[in-house]
């Protein structure tokens, strides 16, 4: 078919361009899943331990966040894996698929590179087909790795269950590959295409959460729900996968149909115009730094307010459950959380949110490097009286303000809802304070990003490796019984777990001083180096 001419070559081009990115995704997702799975036999050695874990999972909050909890009566490693890791891993794989597909379809058109190819002997449908073939191939490869490695990593899990579990994950990735293929036809810009597809992913995850909480009907409207309803390891059911295959086929056909209805480079929906002149607010480097991360900051803040409110809402319920359940209480004291009040639950969730907010800090502080490598600071630093230190400090000030909004949003959401339930208005400021206590640790990450930016700009991405290490140590450190020095590398290990622990100002001051020193060294180095 002439419209597919050149597809094979384009597939090779994608593989060449992403010869690092694709293996990193595959290895990264596999390590995330298999690494987490490998902690199960360590943490839950006996059947009693696993049943304790199962009863802990039997509460509305966890059901919404993870899965419907098939096999809780006999909580094998397989059931544990499917229930606790299945949903999150499916989301991760769906995100990977969306980002890769859009990267090789709409982003290529937006950059004009696709035009260069299309002007050659390349069929109209070849670029989209090549992107689809590659991303679906990546999904199959990842599924094969997961399916074949799980029986090795986890003792006493069935091969058939592992294959079904992996196939479910691949099915979700496949569906969202096709979803992204459609959104890439609708809008002109790659970021919007991935944004819309990721939004649909969030909706489908929320649908299955609501469904799993209720009678399960809504879960049948979600590809993630279909994957979980294969009941892998519990009662292997293959047919829900066919729903995903059918939806994928429909969506891909739709994407090609839409592709024939639009011009190269155009979307089916037109972009909006911008302002004729800048608003009076956009008048300095700080305003610019804020404006450039407006979307990122809004997303994080809204997400954290909502998740905070959710944490506030489940705190009481989870605490009641823990109080009634001897085994669950034992688990919690093992994991390092003392007491059994709602505030213990809230404090535990806030510590996790604090660590994840480090991701915001890195994204926000990464603005300096992103603007530099895009060549956009050149007119600012070369053509206006803006000095490097003022630009770097303005950007950091935006990060600082953003981190306060993000963690403050979480604290307010959790605090207000918690106070509403407990009936004690004093609870709101206490929970807010607990959330804000994580800020100095968050700033240490921003400081680290600034240090790398100044000293080793080409290796700025290393700061994400540091965050991954911090989150890993924070989540699995107690389970893996890591030595104290390893856990203490994380700045979050030094934050008092408010509101249950005593407030201590010394560690917070030390963390703030560390953040300031890291940033100061970074900025000093930036002032001395070439703009690259």
């Amino acid at each position: 078919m002439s419209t597919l001419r050149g597809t094979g070559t384009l597939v090779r081009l994608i593989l060449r361009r992403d010869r690092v990115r694709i293996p990193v995704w595959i290895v990264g997702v596999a390590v995330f899943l298999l690494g987490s799975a490998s902690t199960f036999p360590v943490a839950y050695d006996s059947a009693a331990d696993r049943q304790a874990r199962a009863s802990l999972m039997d509460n509305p909050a966890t059901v919404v966040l993870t899965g419907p909890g098939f096999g809780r009566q006999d909580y094998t490693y397989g059931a544990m894996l499917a229930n606790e890791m299945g949903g999150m891993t499916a989301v991760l794989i769906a995100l990977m698929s969306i980002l890769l597909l859009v990267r090789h379809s709409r982003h290529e058109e937006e950059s004009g590179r696709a035009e260069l190819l299309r002007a050659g002997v390349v069929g109209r449908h070849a670029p989209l087909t090549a992107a689809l073939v590659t991303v679906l191939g990546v999904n199959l490869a990842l599924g094969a790795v997961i399916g074949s490695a799980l029986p090795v990593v986890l003792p006493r899990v069935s091969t058939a269950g592992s294959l079904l579990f992996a196939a479910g994950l691949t099915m979700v990735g496949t569906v969202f590959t096709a979803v992204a293929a459609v959104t890439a036809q609708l809008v002109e810009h790659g970021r919007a295409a991935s944004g819309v597809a990721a939004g649909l992913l969030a909706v489908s995850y929320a649908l299955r959460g609501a469904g799993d909480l209720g009678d399960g009907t809504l879960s049948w409207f979600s590809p993630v729900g279909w994957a979980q309803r294969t009941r892998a390891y519990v009662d292997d059911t293959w047919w829900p996968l066919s729903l995903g295959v059918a939806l994928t086929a429909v969506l891909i056909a739709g994407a090609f149909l839409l592709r024939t209805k639009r011009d190269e480079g155009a979307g089916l929906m037109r972009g909006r115009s911008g302002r004729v002149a800048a608003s009076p607010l956009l008048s300095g480097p700080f305003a610019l730094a804020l404006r450039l991360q407006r979307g990122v900051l809004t997303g994080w803040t809204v997400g954290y307010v909502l998740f905070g409110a959710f944490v506030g809402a489940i705190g009481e319920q989870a605490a009641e459950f823990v109080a009634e359940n001897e085994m669950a209480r034992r688990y919690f004291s093992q994991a390092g959380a003392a007491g059994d009040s709602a505030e213990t639950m809230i404090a535990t969730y806030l510590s996790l949110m604090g660590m994840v907010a480090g991701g915001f800090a890195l994204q926000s502080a990464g603005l300096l490097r992103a603007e530099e490598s895009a060549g956009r600071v050149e007119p600012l630093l070369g053509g206006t009286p803006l000095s490097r230190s003022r630009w770097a400090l303005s950007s950091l000030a935006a990060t600082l303000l953003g981190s306060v909004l993000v963690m403050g949003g979480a604290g307010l959401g959790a605090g207000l809802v918690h106070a509403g339930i407990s009936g004690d208005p004093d609870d709101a400021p206490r929970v807010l304070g607990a959330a804000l206590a994580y800020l100095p640790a968050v700033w240490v990450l921003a400081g680290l990003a600034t240090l790398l930016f100044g000293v080793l700009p080409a290796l700025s991405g290393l700061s994400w490796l540091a965050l991954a290490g911090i989150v890993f140590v924070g989540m699995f450190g107690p389970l893996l019984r890591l030595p104290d020095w390893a856990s203490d590398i994380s700045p979050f290990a030094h934050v008092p777990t408010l509101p249950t622990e005593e407030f201590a100002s010394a560690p917070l001051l030390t963390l703030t001083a560390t953040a300031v020193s890291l940033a100061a060294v970074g900025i000093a180095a930036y002032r001395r180096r070439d703009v690259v």
Partner: protein
Amino acid sequence: MNSEPSAVTTSGLTKDFGPNRALDGLDLNVRTGEVHGFLGPNGAGKTTTIRILLGLLRADSGEAHLLGGDPWRDATELHHRVAYVPGDVTLWPNLSGGEVIDLLGRLRGGLDQRRKDDLLRRFDLDPRKKARTYSKGNRQKVGLVAALAAEPELLVLDEPTSGLDPLMEETFRECVRQQRREGRTILLSSHILSEVEALCDRVTIVREGSAVESGTLAELRHLTRTSVSAELTTVPEGLAELPGVHKLEINGTHVRCEVDNPALDEVLRRLTTGGVRGLTSQPPTLEELFLRHYEQRPETTTREGASR
């Protein structure tokens, strides 16, 4: 610090990027109030020089002065008096062109709205469009409007017209002439020779990181060759053996050649011995000047070498 009224001076500027030498002892002198053409092919070191002058890069050795200050140390203060258009203007994709122009203006401490509106009209730029939807030429216009609306002492333009259509190029030339009348100094890096020829008072030609020629166009021409084309009654003997004669073509009684200027007198004397019926002589175009510098090997590009 400098007795001559120079807006820009560099001497012996060098800069290495790893093993590659981008600048190799570059000298540049831009006098206050002139339009100075900075000519050279891609990779000759024009942009590196400009980035050093703007304090974005630090020179490995050599001296640079910009408006009487040190471009690295005094970057911030100097930039109040300098405006810059890069060769490839990159913009924030989610800001409109109008927003970018205002922002850059405000960072300089404000800009004249009337001037901005006039430039938007002259360059026929729609400021409402988001930067990601601009073509290369339109992004370039955003950079030009932002820089021209500022009222700096020195305008640094690095291949500013790349991507502009001929109509807009003409608008650009008018704007540069107007800026010059208003007393500004302009450093115009370019490889569009007609543009340099039309706008520049003086020119510096760079090659492989150092300046090989500098002066007014008339001075540069004086150092080189004139094309001579003559219709003769009879062609005299020994034309080819005369010193300073190049590319001699004899076609019946028609003679064409290029002559080194110092040898011109002698060649014309010899031609008149054959009876001149028609004669045209042309000074070299900038293009010829330019090409000659790039056809030659580095060791023969000194001025002495040019007259050979």
